[in-house]
């Protein structure tokens, strides 16, 4: 769907969207790697569905300017050569993203973005080939496990969100020690569940360890998830649940702006 079509349809459905209610003007940056394919979807959902200020960032550029949240979108950066996300990690902009994250900036990695964050060492563990070997493209239900993060703060603990997944390498893996750390620091934010919120084997689309769909770092400012919140921000697309992730981020930054001016 072209941005123009999206804009027209969003206008038609405007009674259903109030955008994100923020007193603070969020600055979002969406990175384009060679082979990114969800960059435009992230941009459109933020700009059209949620009426946010968004800029594209080119992977070869330095990360310059002030941003509240940097999004690493889905796709097949560098053709997924060697391993998913392995080469994108060395893009010039990623050095800036690592610094940005270390200084407390919010970083959201979706799908291939999640893989890049794991490869970069910003998130623990790795994403490997789906256990069933097939590419999965379907709606999934996700249970929100922790809400004391900037990415899930506007959601209720235990709430079930509906979003799509589309990936071939989304099976989350971590060694036992790393997994224990994830538990201890409550870094598992999303799990694949059935419609009733039960983390069953059948509800796990890719064989991820403990049905893990999304994790954050210890400092809780970097979040990676395999499902796609950006294509679940409009009733037209079957779900608006993804907007709750973006809403959480905007709300967290608004609170911070109130505190720090």
């Amino acid at each position: 769907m072209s941005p123009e079509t999206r804009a027209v349809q969003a206008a038609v459905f405007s009674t259903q969207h109030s955008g994100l209610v923020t007193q603070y003007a969020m600055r979002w940056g969406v990175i384009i790697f060679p082979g990114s394919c969800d960059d435009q979807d992230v941009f459109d959902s933020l700009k059209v569905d949620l009426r946010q200020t968004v800029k594209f960032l080119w992977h070869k550029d330095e990360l310059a300017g002030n941003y509240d949240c940097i999004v690493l979108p889905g796709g097949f950066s560098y053709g997924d050569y060697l391993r998913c996300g392995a080469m994108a990690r060395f893009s010039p902009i990623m050095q800036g993203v690592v610094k940005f994250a270390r200084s407390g900036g919010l970083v959201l990695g979706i799908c291939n973005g999640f893989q890049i964050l794991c490869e970069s060492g910003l998130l623990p563990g790795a994403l490997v080939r789906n256990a069933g070997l097939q590419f999965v493209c379907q709606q999934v239900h996700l249970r929100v496990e922790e809400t004391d993060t900037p990415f899930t703060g506007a959601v209720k603990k235990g709430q079930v969100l509906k979003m799509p997944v589309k990936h071939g390498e989304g099976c989350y893996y971590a060694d036992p020690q790393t997994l224990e750390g994830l538990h201890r620091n409550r870094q598992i934010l999303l799990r694949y569940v059935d419609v009733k919120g039960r983390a069953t084997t059948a509800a796990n689309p890719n064989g991820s360890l403990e049905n893990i769909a999304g994790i954050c770092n210890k400092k809780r400012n970097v979040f990676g998830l395999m499902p796609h919140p950006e294509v679940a921000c409009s009733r037209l697309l079957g779900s608006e649940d993804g907007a709750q992730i973006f809403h959480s981020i905007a709300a967290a930054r608004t609170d911070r702006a109130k505190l720090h001016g």
Partner: protein
Amino acid sequence: MRVKIFVLLKNGVLDPQGNAIERSLHSIGYEEVHDVRVGKYLELDIDAPSRAVAELRVREMCDKLLANTVIEDYRFEISPES
């Protein structure tokens, strides 16, 4: 110098490709096959003043890029001739 690098998923990391290949081999009559693991094999030429330096550099590039040591193990062989 010519370098041969072998990258393989660690024991304990699920290898669905290996499992599928194992099932295939069984179905065509090779039932004696077990524990199939699929990995990567890379070859490259490297200019280095000594074998020790080459080893150091190759180990570094494996740790940084060629293998993800969270899920993969690697080993390599260096031969003098390209």
